[in-house]
C-alpha cells in the first residue's frame, strides 16, 4: 500500500539538502521498524517519491513524500511511529492513502505560498504587495548551468499580501516552471534585502491560487 505523507521541516533541519532528507526518511523508517518496500535490482533502495526540493535555508509545513509499504499498516501507526523516530524539527502532519494510479504529487501543483521575513523598511511590504499586483514586465537575470538569461518573472508571481511584519507571497512552483521566493521578493523590493526567514505554507493547484 502507498501513503502520501505530508510533513513539515522546521528550523533545526532547514539547512539540510534534499538528498539528506531522503536519507533521513530511510533511517527514520528503519528506526520506526516500518515495512517499507524496496526496489528490485542490484542496488535496492526504499520506495520513496518526494515532492519538489526546497531551497536550503527554507522551512516548510507542506512537504510531501509517497512511501510504499509491503504490508497493510494503519495511518495512525505510521504517523505515531514516524514522529517518534524523527528529530523534533521534522513532523509528520497528515497521511492519506493513494494508489499507483494517483498522479505524482507535483503533477497538478502550480504554485507555492510563502511567508517571508526580512529587514523590510517602514511601508516597504505594502510597496512590494502593490508591485506584485502590477501588470508590466519584471525582467530578471536568471543564472543556469548554460549561462545567464533574461526572464520575465511577472507571470510567475500570483499573489501577495502583508501579514503582521511578514510578506505572504505566492509564486510559481511545479513541474513546468518554478520561481524561487528569495529571487521574487528581492526583485519586487528592488534592493538586496537581508532575508531573515522563508517558510513554505502550502503547495497549491491551479484552482487554489489566490
Amino acid at each position, binding site marked *: 500500500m502507498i501513503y502520501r505523507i505530508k510533513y513539515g521541516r522546521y528550523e533545526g*533541519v532547514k539547512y*539540510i*539538502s534534499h538528498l*539528506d532528507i531522503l536519507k*533521513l526518511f530511510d533511517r527514520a*523508517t528503519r528506526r520506526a521498524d516500518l515495512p517499507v518496500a524496496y526496489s528490485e535490482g542490484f542496488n535496492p533502495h526504499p520506495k520513496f517519491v518526494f515532492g519538489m526540493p526546497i531551497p536550503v*535555508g527554507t522551512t516548510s509545513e507542506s512537504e510531501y513524500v509517497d512511501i510504499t509499504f509491503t504490508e497493510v499498516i494503519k495511518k495512525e501507526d505510521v504517523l505515531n511511529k514516524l514522529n517518534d523516530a524523527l528529530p523534533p524539527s521534522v513532523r509528520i502532519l497528515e497521511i492519506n492513502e493513494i494508489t499507483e494510479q494517483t498522479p505524482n504529487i507535483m503533477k497538478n501543483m502550480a504554485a507555492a505560498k510563502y511567508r517571508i521575513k526580512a529587514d523590510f523598511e517602514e511601508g516597504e511590504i505594502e510597496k512590494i504587495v502593490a508591485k506584485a499586483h502590477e501588470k508590466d514586465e519584471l525582467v530578471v537575470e536568471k543564472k543556469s548551468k548554460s549561462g545567464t538569461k533574461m526572464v520575465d518573472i511577472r507571470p510567475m508571481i500570483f499573489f501577495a499580501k502583508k501579514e503582521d511584519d511578514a510578506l505572504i507571497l505566492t509564486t510559481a512552483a511545479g513541474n513546468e516552471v518554478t520561481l524561487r521566493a528569495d529571487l521574487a521578493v528581492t526583485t519586487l523590493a528592488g534592493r538586496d534585502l537581508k532575508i531573515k526567514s522563508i517558510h513554505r505554507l502550502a503547495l497549491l493547484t491551479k484552482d487554489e491560487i489566490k
Partner: protein
Amino acid sequence: MSYIPDDILLSVEKPSRYTGGEWNEVIKDKNEIDIRVGFCFADIYDIGMSHLGLKLLYHMLNERKDTWCERVFAPWPDLEEKMRAEGYKLYALESQEPVENFDMLMFTLQYEMAFTNILNMIDLAGLPVYSKDRTEGMPFIIAGGGVANNPEPLADFVDVFNIGEGEEVLNEILDCYKEWKKAKKPRIEFLKEVSKIEGVYVPAFYRTEYNEDGTIKSFEPTEPEAKNPVKKRVVESYDKCYFPEKFVVPYGNVVHDRIMIEVMRGCSHGCRFCQAGFIYRPVRERSIDTIVNLADKLVKSTGYEEISLLSLSTCDYTDIAGLADRLLDKFEEKRVSLSIPSSRVDAFTLGLAERVSKVRKSGLTFAPEAGTQRMRDIINKGVNEEDLLKSARLAFEGGWNNVKLYFMLGLPYETDEDVLGIPALAKKVLDEYYDVYANRKCRRPEITVSVSTFVPKPFTPFQWCEQITTEEIKRRQQLIKTNLDKRIRFSWHNPETSVLEGTLSRGDRRIGQVIYNVWKDGGKFDAWDEYLSYERWEKAFADAGLTMEFYNQRERRENEILPWDHISVGVTKRFFRCEFEKAKRGELTKGCLEKCSACGMTSYGKGVCVNDIQN
C-alpha cells in the same frame, strides 16, 4: 537557535555542519551538571563525525550525570573568516554556546597534520594557545588518541595528555577535576593531582636538555608527582568495557556514515612499519554475543543501513565467519549490510567476502604493502605472492571486478627493483582476472593500485630510520606510474605531506615553536592538500633554528634518547631494536597468536598474552 546567525550560515558551504540537532545528540540542562566538556576534533564535522573514538567517548562521558559532553569541530575557512570578522568564537554544537568557559576541552589526536588546527581552535575559542599563558578559570586542554603517544610536539600547548585507552582514565580525570573544582584550589593543584593517575602525562612537569648536536641530553621530571616513565592505560576488561548503544546520526554527508563496531583491539602480526600494530597491543576480542547485542541496539537506535566491523585486521577475528553469519541472519531482511574495512591477503576467503557483500556488493581491498618478497620480509608482512593471487582469483570467480591493492613506497632498504615489483604484482592480478574470464564475456576489471609513502613512526622497529626526501618519493612514484599497465588505476599520496608527517611524528618539544610559527603565519588545515604550504613549514623550521633533516633524514643512533622514551606503551625499546636488526637481515617474527616474541606486553597480563582473548 543557532549561535551563528542565518545570514552567515546561508553564505557558507554546507551550513548543516554547524547547527547540530541530529538524531541522538545529547542535550542536558547546563544548570544541573558540574562539568562541561567540549570534545574537540581538529578538522571539519564531515571528518570528525566519521571517527569512532569521538562517538564512543562522547556517549560514554554523557553517561555521567555530572557531565555534559558536547561536540566541537573546526569550522571550514569560509565560516572561520566570517566568525573572526564578526567576533564569533569557537562553540559547541549541542548548546550552541562558546566553549570559552567550559571546564575542559578534550582533543583526540588522529594525525599530525591537524596540529595547526588544534592551535587555531584554541585561539578561536578565545584562549591563549600556550599552556603557560592560560590562567585560572580557563578550561584545561586535554589530549589523547594514537598520536598522543609521542606528546612532545604539542607539549607546550596541551595541559594534560591521556596515554593509551581512554575508556577508564577519562572518568578518573573527571572525578579528579570535580574534587579539585569543589575545593576551589589553584590551577596548578589540579595538574599535580591528575598527574598521579596512571596513564596521565602533564608535560609542564618535565624538563628536557639537549646536546650540542641537537639530540636529547636528558629528560627529567621537575615535580615529585610526575611519573617517569608514563605507562599507557589498557582497559580492565575489553569485552565488558563501555561501548555506546547509540550514535549521533548526521544529516549531511560524512565520510564514514554507518554503524561502526570495534570487534577487536590490537593486532597480532607485528608489521614493522605499523605503529597501531604495536601501541594497541595486546590483542583482545569482543565476544560474538556482545557484538550481536550491540549491533541490534545500534540498528534500532540509529536506523543505519550498514554495519562495519572495525579493528586493525578484522579477518583475524577468531570466528569471523560465525560472527558474520549471526549478524546476517539477524539483519539481512532489514536490508542492513555488513562491511569490513580491509582484508589481509592470507585471511581472505571467498565465503567471508560473500557474506560481507550479501546485501550489497562493494569493492575489495587487499594490502600486500610491498611489491617483492624481500621487501615484505623486511617489514614482516608474512604474506606471499601466491596468497595474493589466490585470493584475487577467488574474488574474481565470485563475481568481483573491483579490487584495490594497497602498497607502501619508500620502506627502509627499498631498491628500485622493489619499487618495480609493485606494478609487476598488479599486472599479475590483472592477468588473473583475464585468466578467470578466458573466452567468456566479462565486465572491465577495475583494479586500483594505491600507494602511500612510508612514514617512520615512534614505537615501531623503524623509529630510528631516515625517511626518503620529497624528490626521491616523486621519482619512485613516477617509476611506478610509467611501469604500470594502463588498464590499472594509480593513486598516490602527496610527498610533502608524508615528509611533514615523518618530521612531526618523531618531533621533540622544540617542534612546538615550529607549529606555532606555521599557525601564526596562517597555517591551518594542513591535512588538506589545498591548504598545505610546504614552504610555510620550511620557513617555520628555519625561523625556529631547526631543520627537518635533523628529525627526518638521518638514522638515529642506537643509544640516542628518543623524544618519546619517557612514554611506555608496554612493548619495549629493546624489542623494537631487536626487530630493527631482524628487518635488516630480512628475518620474520611470528605473530602473537602463533608464538610469543617477548615484546614486553605480558607485563599488562591481558588478552592474547595470557590466553584470555576477551579480557
